[in-house]
């Protein structure tokens, strides 16, 4: 017996670990939303490109679009353009879209729309190896001297690439030095500053490149902000050239890197690019589904959401049955309330789905009462059990027919129309209550019937509670946990709550 108990415990623990593990995996790794209503921000970035086409010349517009390799998942990407061919290709880690047309006239508008979310994003890819050394550019005369003069203290005040870059940025921004002013040459724009920082780093053989980023924040127009990044051998380090801050904020999206301009235009002039960013809320579940539809990997793979919708509906009901069964088990073994079998309350709970709880309870009580009184009458006639039950069940069907008819005539059609499934279950319940009545008497069968009804109502409420349904359906590992509890309950030897009352006479409290 000991070894069997140990075996059962091990089984329960194994099931528990397996179930909890699968749930943890889904939540922590697959990032599955915990509740159905959980929503995520979805960023919609609209890029409008407008220009004047020169008549009778082919038009070719090349614009960078985000490479989308880290931090965000693209839900949807669209290029909206009339009469333009669209072609997207990769180039040095950037993505470039090329719009082309044989000819165009007047004002042309091209749109690029990108929808992004940070949920379900792949963890940042291991960065392709960046450069770690670059030859220093040829500088002449005063510039050479100024650069050297600036670099000497920087080298002294820094320990590694990271600190070197921030120190450089700080110095270039301080402006009080003549050397900086000389290198800036009167242009104090951030771009020029970034160029000077880059220049200094180049002289020091430190590779760096400008990156152009967009902030994901509700704005109607925004221009890409310039950042610098450098490769330290393992990771890309990002720096803000305006103040030397290190690290790219979470809400910044890298649009493109390198010194090329955002847009190159042939056969047109007066180009203007504007960005606008909007924030939308989208349920995490819908988000996953839309990712699935565009073949991005998401938790939908190998989950019940992959089933066709009618099967999903069915499974939403089926998968709650173990929950109901466990509740009945607990009600019976822990509380000690008697029910008809284990499965009957769950079946009645399923029937309540169609009749609504209130009507279901009324119907259940009323029809069972009628059925049992017919039974009581037939007992006088000394009919055999089977014959007696058959008559009872026939009367139950007649009663149901009458109730439906009455309900229809009174216009209460919705509540009182009895569907086939509840009818079958009710009939079965009456048969079983009658058998209990035969075997153990009226009082007992009344007790059992009430217990069954209470258990069924509780089961029903639990089985249609939508957060729970969502949770069990999304994380089927819950079923393993339920099974673990059931195995554990199979070896529960403690008292039932009712027994505390039953044996109260045997305690000192009961003596008094």
């Amino acid at each position, binding site marked *: 017996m000991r070894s069997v108990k140990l075996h059962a415990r091990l089984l329960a623990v194994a099931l528990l670990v397996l179930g909890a593990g699968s749930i943890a995996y889904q939540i922590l790794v697959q990032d599955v939303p915990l509740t159905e209503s959980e929503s995520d921000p979805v960023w919609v970035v609209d890029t409008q490109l407008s220009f004047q086409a020169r008549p009778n010349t082919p038009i070719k517009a090349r614009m960078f679009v985000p490479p989308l390799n880290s931090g965000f998942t693209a839900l949807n990407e669209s290029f909206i353009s009339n009469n333009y061919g669209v072609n997207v290709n990769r180039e040095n880690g950037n993505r470039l879209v090329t719009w082309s047309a044989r000819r165009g006239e007047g004002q042309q508008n091209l749109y690029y729309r990108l929808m992004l979310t940070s949920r379900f994003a792949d963890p940042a890819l291991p960065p392709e190896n960046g450069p770690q050394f670059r030859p220093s550019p040829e500088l002449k005369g005063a510039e050479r001297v100024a650069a050297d003069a600036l670099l000497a203290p920087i080298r002294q005040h820094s320990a590694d690439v990271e600190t070197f870059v921030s120190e450089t940025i700080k110095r270039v921004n301080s402006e009080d030095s003549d050397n900086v002013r000389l290198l800036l040459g009167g242009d104090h724009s951030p771009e020029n500053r970034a160029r000077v920082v880059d220049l200094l780093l180049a002289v020091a053989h430190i590779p760096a490149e400008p990156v152009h980023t967009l902030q994901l924040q509700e704005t109607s127009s925004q221009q890409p902000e310039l950042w610098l990044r450098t490769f330290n051998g393992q990771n890309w380090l990002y720096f803000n050239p305006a103040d030397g801050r290190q690290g790219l904020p979470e809400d910044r999206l890298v649009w493109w890197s390198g010194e090329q301009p955002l847009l190159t235009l042939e056969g047109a002039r007066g180009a203007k690019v504007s960005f606008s960013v909007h924030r939308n809320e989208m349920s995490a579940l819908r988000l996953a589904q839309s990712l699935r539809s565009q073949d991005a990997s998401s938790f939908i793979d190998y989950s019940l959401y992959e089933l066709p919708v009618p099967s999903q509906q069915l499974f939403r009901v089926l998968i709650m049955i173990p929950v109901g069964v466990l509740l009945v088990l607990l009600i019976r073994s822990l509380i000690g309330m008697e029910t008809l079998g284990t499965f009957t309350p769950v079946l009645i709970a399923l029937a309540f789905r169609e009749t609504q709880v209130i009507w279901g309870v009324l119907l259940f009580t009323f029809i069972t009462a009628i059925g049992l009184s017919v039974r009581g009458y037939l007992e006088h006639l000394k009919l055999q059990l089977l014959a007696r039950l058959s008559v009872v069940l026939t009367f139950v069907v007649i009663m149901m027919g009458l109730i439906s008819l009455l309900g229809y005539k009174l216009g209460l059609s919705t509540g009182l129309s009895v569907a086939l499934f509840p009818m079958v279950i009710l009939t079965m319940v009456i048969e079983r209550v009658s058998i209990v009545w035969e075997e153990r008497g009226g009082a007992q069968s009344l007790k059992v019937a009430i217990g069954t009804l209470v258990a069924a109502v509780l089961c029903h409420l639990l089985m249609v509670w939508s957060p729970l349904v969502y949770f069990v359906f999304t994380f089927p590992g819950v079923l393993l946990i339920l099974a673990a509890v059931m195995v554990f309950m199979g070896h529960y030897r403690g008292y039932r709550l009712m027994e505390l009352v039953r044996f109260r006479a045997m305690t000192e*409290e009961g003596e008094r």
Partner: protein
Amino acid sequence: MFGIATWRALRRRGVMGINQRNGDYVLMYNDRRLYPLVDDKIRTKNMALEAGIQVPDMYGIIDTEQGISQLEHIVETHGDFVIKPSQGAGGDGILVISDRFEGYYRSASGRMISPEELEFHISGIISGLYSLGGHRDRALIEYRVRSTDLFDRISIGGVPDVRIIVLQGYPVAAMLRLPTRQSDGKANLHQGAIGVGVDIATGVTLSGTWHNLKIDRHPDTAHPVAGVQVPDWDQCLALAARCYDLTGLGYLGVDLVMDKHKGPLMLELNARPGLNIQIANDDGLLRRCRLIEDHLEARGEDAGTEAAASRVALSRRLFAVPDLPEAPTPP
């Protein structure tokens, strides 16, 4: 809190709960295959007869409609008898005939029954009117037990019986079950009969239980139930202990009746005996079962070999109640 304190108190007293009885005793000691032995009274009786255990004499069995005409022949030489469904439950369908008059039968309650009525009743038994699940059954015609008058003061109608719970052949607890008006002559506790604990060592009754309450007097006669000596107690215990060898059921409730002339007779066996015997004895079954299990463990290899007499002796020693109630003085 009320619940936790009660829980602890019950655990301390070694009270057995339903979960524990089902899991650790019924499921563990009783092989499901053996249940039919005790569910069918005729099989139980035949088995007992072969083993020489005293049971009420069987006059005959009627198992077909044609056989009903044999009734007259079967009861020819007997003035009184009992007709029972072999697989009935809760005492339903039992008809006690105490006398005959001018071709009529007189029931225990004094009603006159015509032979046709009696045949109709047997026909109902055979067709499964009283059997569990409604399948065909057999009617058993047997000796009518004449209750000893020892229990007259504390019993109303019907025949009292003694329930002894036997674990692996060791009697662990005993209870005298006394019919009341409410129980309508039946000795089933949940139908309102009272249960009175019996000291295993001496066979003297202790206090009683009625509907989960502790009581000292019979609810109908108001006589104290304690201090009555159950007759032939040695035989009762020996009978009960041997029922284990007979059936192989390790956790068994043995029901005995005390016949005025023949002494204790085994009436029926129960593979899932109820737990109210604990309230009647004011002692936990778990505590007592553990003592037996410890004993068996100590015996190790020889656990199953102890003779019935020595098993009974051990039980008497282990479960003796120290201060027995005085016999009630007649009013």
